């Protein structure tokens, strides 16, 4: 059992008419890259806002590093929430210098983090002259200033061009590989799938699913199948020991198997049962389909 970085207990935020977060309890262990997944307005930013003490929760509690939730713990966290917020008329260097003062670290870290996000040669330019991608990278640099144990990123690729998105993702994976705990909020499933190893799904403030990315992605196998004799195919395929479910499509079946089998075994099984196959397509079961299924189940 590794150390617990964050533990929340029945966090709830009630705005006048809506419950933005509803009894949210979860635990994040050290070294995890944790995805907070959910459509826009599902409570991701509110959750992070509470965890960073800029939003007051209505009820419930949370603990960082099994210690507490004061600014002492916050100094061990690097975070950006809802985009980069800096002093517009300060240069990048001065902005980072100010944050160093707040975090109580020396300004010898500034050069390192600026190089890490590839902004060192623009360090004396004012923040307001930066492009969105550069602003976002500077935000990550500022989050890295105190060499934090936990990095919190809220929609870090929002509004960026494909190159910017790729850069940021690469950066996150690089940071995660150094053993830091990363908490990433995103509405992009693809992003969470590529970057995270654990995740939870929020919908209207409720936790509706919690899991490990690789498990959820590989714990089933979906294959599209068609044969000249669809009736025989159906009876045979249902006798496969790993068979889970079958969906009738227009020209083929969408068959779901347990993740413990693989497509060569299925092909072999069909061959042994003398089924002629006219269509055989392995669908990559990704988080997207998983996510949509989870959302559907929780309507």
């Amino acid at each position, binding site marked *: 059992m590794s150390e617990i970085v964050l533990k929340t207990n029945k966090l709830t935020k009630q705005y006048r008419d809506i419950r933005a977060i509803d009894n949210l309890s979860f635990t994040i262990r050290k070294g995890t890259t944790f995805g907070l997944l959910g459509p826009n307005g599902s409570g991701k930013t509110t959750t992070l806002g509470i965890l960073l003490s800029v939003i007051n929760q209505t009820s419930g509690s949370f603990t960082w590093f099994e210690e507490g939730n004061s600014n002492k713990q916050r100094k061990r966290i690097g975070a950006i929430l809802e985009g980069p917020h*800096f*002093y517009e*008329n300060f240069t990048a260097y001065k902005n980072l210098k100010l*944050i160093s003062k707040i975090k109580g670290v020396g300004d010898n870290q500034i050069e390192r983090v600026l190089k890490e996000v590839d902004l060192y040669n623009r360090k004396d330019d004012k923040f307001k002259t930066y492009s969105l991608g550069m602003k976002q990278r500077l935000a990550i640099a500022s989050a890295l200033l105190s060499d934090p144990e936990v990095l919190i990123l809220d929609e870090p690729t929002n509004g960026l061009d494909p190159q910017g998105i790729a850069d940021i993702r690469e950066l996150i994976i690089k940071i995660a590989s150094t053993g830091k705990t990363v908490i990433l909020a995103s509405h992009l499933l693809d992003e969470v799938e590529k970057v995270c190893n654990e995740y939870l799904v929020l919908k209207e403030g409720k936790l509706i699913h919690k899991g490990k990315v690789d498990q959820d992605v590989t714990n089933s196998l979906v294959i599209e199948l068609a044969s000249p004799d669809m009736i025989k195919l159906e009876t045979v395929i249902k006798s496969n020991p790993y068979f889970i479910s079958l969906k009738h499509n227009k020209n083929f079946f969408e068959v779901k198997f347990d993740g413990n089998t693989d497509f060569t075994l299925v092909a072999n099984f069909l061959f042994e049962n003398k089924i002629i196959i006219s269509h055989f397509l392995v669908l990559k079961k990704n988080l997207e389909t998983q996510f949509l299924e989870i959302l559907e189940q929780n309507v």
Partner: protein
Amino acid sequence: MFRLLDIEFYKLRNSKYFWILLILFMIFLISVPISVNLFFETIRSNKMTREGRTLVNYVSFFYTEDLWHNLTYIYKLGTILLAFITMISITNEYNYKTIKQNIIDGLSKKEFLLSKIYMIIVLSLFVTFLVGIIGVVTGFLYSQTSDLSLIFENIKYLGFYFIYVLTFLLFSFFIANLIKKSGVSIAIMIFYIIMIEPIIVAISTYGLKIEWLSSFYPINGINNLISNPFSRHFFKDLNRFTLTPFFVSIFYIILYIYLTYKILKNRDL
């Protein structure tokens, strides 16, 4: 405390508005004795008289025992420039959401507030110090007295000036925190000072006939710290000196800090 001051002054000294307003304030400080002296010189050289006495004796701005009272009374006007500094310093933080980022980066809300309040105290001390220097220099140059100890007579007005500036700045800081937008909060503050409170004072004094109440309003109450020194030349008995404005100011200082803290603590950033 020094860490918080260091953070706040780092923000200020890298901001253009701070220098512009501070320099304007200093120009105002210096220009007052110079222009007043010029004014009296003109009167003197033109030998303007009234009832046989020269006007210079009539309204004696630089009389040593009145000097501090006269100077600080006029310098009260300049406080609005300092109020703009405190107001912009907090509304900018809301506007660019840097207050939020400061909290995320590791300041507690209390520390954030303290950094601003320390700044306000230091700023008030600094301008009081400037006024002090100008008072002494003016006393030497213009008062035409040989007894230098007289310069320090009534220096208590310098202390009142400090209390006045501090209370006024905390008042403006409180409004800026409440409203969050710089333009709107400055407009509301000015509107309150020149319209709302005078009307309320008029109603309570002349309408409801509760005269004592006027000493307890936020602006009127602290204005009484340094009452109009020139009226004394016309209504000699009106210059009764009381400590009421001092206690009223202390009350408001505590109230503004408390309310601002409450607002910030309960607010979602």
